C-alpha cells in the first residue's frame, strides 16, 4: 500500500472539479450587494479534478477495515451487518429531499413514521413514552439526566449525585457531569456485578439516579436487578438504563419491566444502522409516565386529522438539538424493526447470545476469561497472564489486524486488566467465528513461542504501529494552506 498523500498535496493551481450553473445574464456580482469590508480577503482551498478526487477517496477507502470487509467483534459497539435495503430506502426522494420546516400537513409520511417508531420502541423496552431527538447514545444519556434533574427539581428535590458502577462506559460519568451532577463510582462484586453492599452505602438522599447497563459491560446479566430497582426507588432515586447493550435482550426481557425509569437506546448498535466511521448514530430516550412532562419539544401529537409538532409543553426541558433527531438514521432502524417483527427480534437476541457463548467456550480453552460463565452478547478476556512474555492486549489486537480481523475492544471495561472485549453479534456465521477462533489460538501459541512477532505487528497494513504519544505531544491537527505544509 502506497502513501496516498494528502488531498492538499494533489492540488494544482487552476484545476477544478466543481460544476455550477452560469449566472444568468442580468446577474450582478456579490460586490454590488455586500460592503467590501464583509467580503473575504484571501482564501486558499484545494484545486483538484473530479477524477483525482475520486481516486483519492477510492484509495483511502482501501485502507480501512469495515463490517462489509472484515469481521469486527468490537465489544460494546455491536458491529452487526447493516442491511443494504435500508440504505436504499433512506435515499427515496420522499425521505431524502424533505425540508424539516415543511408544513406538517405536507410531511405526514414522516410524522406518522416517527410516531410509530416511538410506539415500537416503547413496546420493545417496556417504557411509556419515547423521544427520538438525541443524536447518539451519549446525547441520549445527557437528555436522560436532564430529565432526571427536571423531575427532582419539579419535586423541589435538589439531588446532586449520580451513582455509576466502575464497569460503566465513560460516557455515563461524563454525561452526568455535563448535567451538573457529582459522580459516585461503586466497585463491582467478585462476580463482576453491582455490589449490593456498596450500592446500599452509596445510596443516600442526595442520589438522583443510578446509571447502569444490563447486561453490564462484562456481558453479564445483572440478576439482582429487581432488588436493585427496589433499593433505588425506595430512596427516591431513579434508575437509568444505558441501552447500548440491548441487543441480547431483544425478545427476552425489557428494561421497563426491570424497573428502569429512563432508558436510552443506540439505534446504531442494536438496530443495525451503520456506524459511519464514527457516526451518525441515534440515541432515543424512553421514560416512564411520570417523566413524560419533561421531554424535549417538539412532541408529535394528533391535532385534527394530522399529526403535528407541539411546542407547547410547559414543563419541557426545552430543545436538545435543532429539529427532531437524526431522522435518516431513525428511518433505517424503523425499516429494520419492521422487517424483523417479533420473531426476528427474538431470534436476533438469541443468536447474539449463542454466538458470544460459543466464542467464550472455545476461546476459554486457551485464554483466561475472568468471569467465565454464561454471558450475554459479549464477554471479556484478560491477557494479564501473558505479561510475563511481554505481551499485552494491544499486541493481540495488532496481530489480529495483520490477519484481516478488526480487533475487539481493548482496555475496556477498566475493571479487567489487559482486557479484550469480544462482541461477535448475531450476523456472523459459524464459519467466521471458527476462523476467528483459529486465528486467536494461533496468536496465543505465537505469544508463547515467538512473542516478538506479535510486538512487531502489524506489518501488512502500509503503516506500522503509530506513535500516539508523539501525536499528543506535538499536535499536528491540520494542513497549513499558507505554508503549503504540514503544521
Amino acid at each position, binding site marked *: 500500500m502506497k502513501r496516498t498523500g494528502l488531498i*492538499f498535496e494533489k492540488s494544482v493551481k487552476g484545476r477544478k472539479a466543481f460544476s455550477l*450553473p452560469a*449566472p*444568468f445574464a442580468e446577474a450582478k456580482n*456579490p460586490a*454590488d450587494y*455586500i460592503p467590501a469590508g464583509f467580503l473575504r480577503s484571501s482564501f486558499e482551498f*484545494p484545486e483538484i479534478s473530479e477524477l483525482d478526487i475520486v481516486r483519492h477517496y477510492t484509495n*483511502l*477507502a482501501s485502507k*480501512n*477495515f469495515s463490517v462489509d470487509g472484515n469481521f469486527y467483534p468490537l465489544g460494546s459497539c455491536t*458491529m452487526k*451487518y447493516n442491511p443494504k*435495503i435500508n*440504505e436504499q*430506502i433512506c435515499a427515496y426522494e420522499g425521505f431524502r429531499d*424533505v*425540508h*424539516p*420546516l415543511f408544513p406538517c400537513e405536507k410531511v405526514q409520511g*414522516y410524522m*406518522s413514521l416517527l410516531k410509530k417508531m416511538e410506539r415500537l420502541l416503547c*413496546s420493545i423496552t417496556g417504557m411509556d413514552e419515547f423521544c427520538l431527538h438525541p443524536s447518539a447514545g451519549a*446525547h441520549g444519556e445527557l437528555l436522560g439526566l436532564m430529565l432526571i*434533574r427536571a423531575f427532582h427539581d419539579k419535586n423541589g428535590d435538589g439531588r446532586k449525585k449520580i451513582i455509576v458502577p466502575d464497569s460503566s462506559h465513560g460516557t455515563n*460519568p*461524563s454525561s452526568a457531569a*455535563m448535567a*451538573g451532577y457529582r459522580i459516585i463510582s461503586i466497585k463491582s462484586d467478585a462476580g463482576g456485578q453491582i455490589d449490593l453492599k456498596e450500592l446500599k452505602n452509596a445510596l443516600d438522599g442526595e442520589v438522583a439516579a443510578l446509571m447502569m447497563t444490563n447486561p453490564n459491560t462484562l456481558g453479564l446479566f445483572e*440478576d439482582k436487578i*429487581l432488588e436493585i430497582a427496589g433499593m433505588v426507588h425506595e430512596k427516591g432515586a431513579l434508575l437509568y438504563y444505558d441501552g447500548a447493550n440491548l441487543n441480547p435482550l431483544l*425478545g427476552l426481557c425489557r428494561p421497563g419491566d426491570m424497573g428502569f425509569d429512563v432508558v436510552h437506546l443506540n439505534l446504531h448498535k442494536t438496530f443495525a444502522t451503520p456506524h459511519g*466511521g*464514527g457516526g*451518525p448514530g441515534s440515541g432515543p430516550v424512553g421514560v416512564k409516565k411520570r417523566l413524560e412532562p419533561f421531554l424535549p419539544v417538539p412532541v408529535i401529537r394528533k391535532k385534527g386529522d394530522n399529526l403535528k409538532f407541539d411546542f407547547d409543553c410547559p414543563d419541557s426541558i426545552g*430543545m436538545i438539538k*435543532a429539529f427532531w433527531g437524526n*431522522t*435518516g438514521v431513525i428511518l433505517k432502524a424503523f425499516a429494520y424493526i419492521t*422487517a*424483523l417483527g*417479533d420473531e*426476528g427480534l427474538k431470534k436476533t437476541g438469541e443468536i447474539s447470545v*449463542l454466538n458470544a*457463548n460459543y466464542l467464550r*467456550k*472455545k476461546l476459554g480453552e486457551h485464554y483466561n476469561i475472568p468471569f467465565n460463565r*454464561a454471558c450475554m452478547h459479549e464477554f471479556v478476556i484478560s491477557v494479564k497472564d501473558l505479561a510475563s512474555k511481554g505481551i499485552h492486549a494491544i499486541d493481540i489486537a*495488532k496481530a489480529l489486524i495483520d490477519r484481516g480481523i478488526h480487533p475487539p475492544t481493548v482496555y475496556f471495561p477498566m475493571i479487567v486488566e489487559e482486557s479484550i472485549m469480544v462482541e461477535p453479534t448475531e450476523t456472523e456465521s459459524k464459519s467466521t467465528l471458527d476462523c476467528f477462533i483459529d486465528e486467536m489460538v494461533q496468536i496465543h501459541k505465537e505469544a508463547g513461542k515467538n512473542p516478538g512477532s506479535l510486538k512487531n505487528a502489524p506489518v501488512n497494513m502500509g*503503516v*506500522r*504501529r*503509530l506513535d*500516539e504519544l508523539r*501525536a499528543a505531544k506535538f*499536535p*499536528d491537527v*491540520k*494542513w497549513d494552506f499558507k505554508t503549503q505544509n504540514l503544521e
Partner: protein
Amino acid sequence: MDYIPHGREDIRQMLEALEISSVDDLYPDIPGKIRAGGYGIAGGISEQEVRGTLEKFAGMNASVRTLKSYAGGGAYEHFIPAIIDDICSKPEFYTAYTPYQPEASQGILQSIYEYQSMICELTGTDVSNASLYDGATAAAEAALISVNKYDGGVVAVSSAVNPMYRRVIETYLRSSPCRVEIVEHTEGVTDISRIGKHLSGKLVSFIFQSPNFFGCIEDVKSLSDCIHDKGALSIAVANPLSLGVLEAPGRNGADIVVGEGQPLGIPLCFGGPYLGFIGVKKELMRKLPGRIIGRTLDKDGKEGFVMTLQAREQHIRREKATSNICSNQALMALRAAVYMAYMGKEGMKKVGALNICNSHYLAEQIEKTGKAALKFRKPFFNEFVVEFKKDTAEVLRLFEKEKILPGIQVGEAGRNSLLCCVTETKTKGDMDKYADVVSKL
C-alpha cells in the same frame, strides 16, 4: 425476515459445543418475572414488502422536487454533487466505526484530518475536530468551553441567533453555573451598543450568528472587538457555504466558530443527520469537545494518522472530560470534506456568489411588485424577511396553487412576514415566477 446466517445444523453444532440443548439454557439468571412475551410487532416481512411499506410513507411526504421550496431557517436546499453519494456510500467508510485501531483505519483518519484542515481554513481558526451532532449543539458546546465551572457569569446570545439554537444553548447550560441571557437585535442585526449592558453578571462569552437568523450579515469584526473589550470570548455561528465570499469569522476576531455543516453536501432528510462543526483558536485546543485527528509517525518513521489529545475525552477522563461526545457525525464530515474538495477554491467562491446574487435578484423583483417589502435593509447572504401587505395565510394559499412554498413563518420576524431563502438551486425562471405570484396578491 432476519439477518441471521445460521442454518439448523450450525445451531446444533454450536449448542453441542456448549453442551446445552437450547439457547434458553444460557439464561439461568434472568428472573422469570421479567421474561418478556412478544412485543406485538407484526412482521417478519420480506425485503420486497419492507420496500413497499416504506415507499408508502415516503409517498406521503412533499419533497423539494414536488414542492418548489424557499424554506431555510437552519436547513438548506443546495446542489449535492453526485460524487458525494458515490464516495460516501463506499462500505469501507460507512460500515466502519470510530477509528480506535489506527492501523486499520487510515482511510477514515486521513479523511477527517483533511476535513479538519478545510474547516480551519474556511472559518479562519486553528483547530477543529472530527464533528459534533449539529449546528445547535455545536453552539452549546462552544458556550460550555467559555464557561468556567467555578465562576459563573453570563453567556449572552444575540436575539438574531436561530431560536432553536438559542433554546439548545439554554437547555445545555441550565445546570452550569452560568446564566444565558438574550441581547435584542436592532433592525435585524445584533445591537453592539447593548453588549455587556443590563446583564446579571460578568460576560463570559457572546454568541452571535452571521449570516444571522434573518439572513443579515453581522459586523463580526466590530462585534468581536467589543466582546473582547469586555474580556469575553467571541463565539460566531456561521454558514460555511458563505465563507468562500464572506470573511472568515476567525480572521475577524471570533475565538470560536461553529455552525451547521448541512449546506456542504448533506441532504435535507427532514432535519438530520447533519453536521456540527467547530473551529477554535490554538489556546482553546485542549478544551475542545469530541474526537480530534492528528498526524504522527509510525515505527518506521512513516506518516500516519491517529485520534489524539484523547485526554480530553470521556473514555479516558470520564467525568472530567471536556464533553461526553463518543459517536459523532463522522460520515457527514466525510460528505462535507468531499464537498469542499469538489468545490475547491473557485467553486466555494462561485457557489457563494450565486446564493448572494440569486437571493438579491428575487428580493429586488419582489419589491418591484409593490405588494411586499424587505423587513430589514441590511446586507444578506441567501435569506431575507419579506413583509407582505396581505395576510400570510392568503399569501401561502396563493403560492400553494403553484406548488411553491414561498418561505417559512417565523414568529421572530413578526406578522405577515416570511423568511425566504434562495440558493443556487433556483433559476431566473423560478424567481420570476415567484415575483409573478406576489404581483397577483
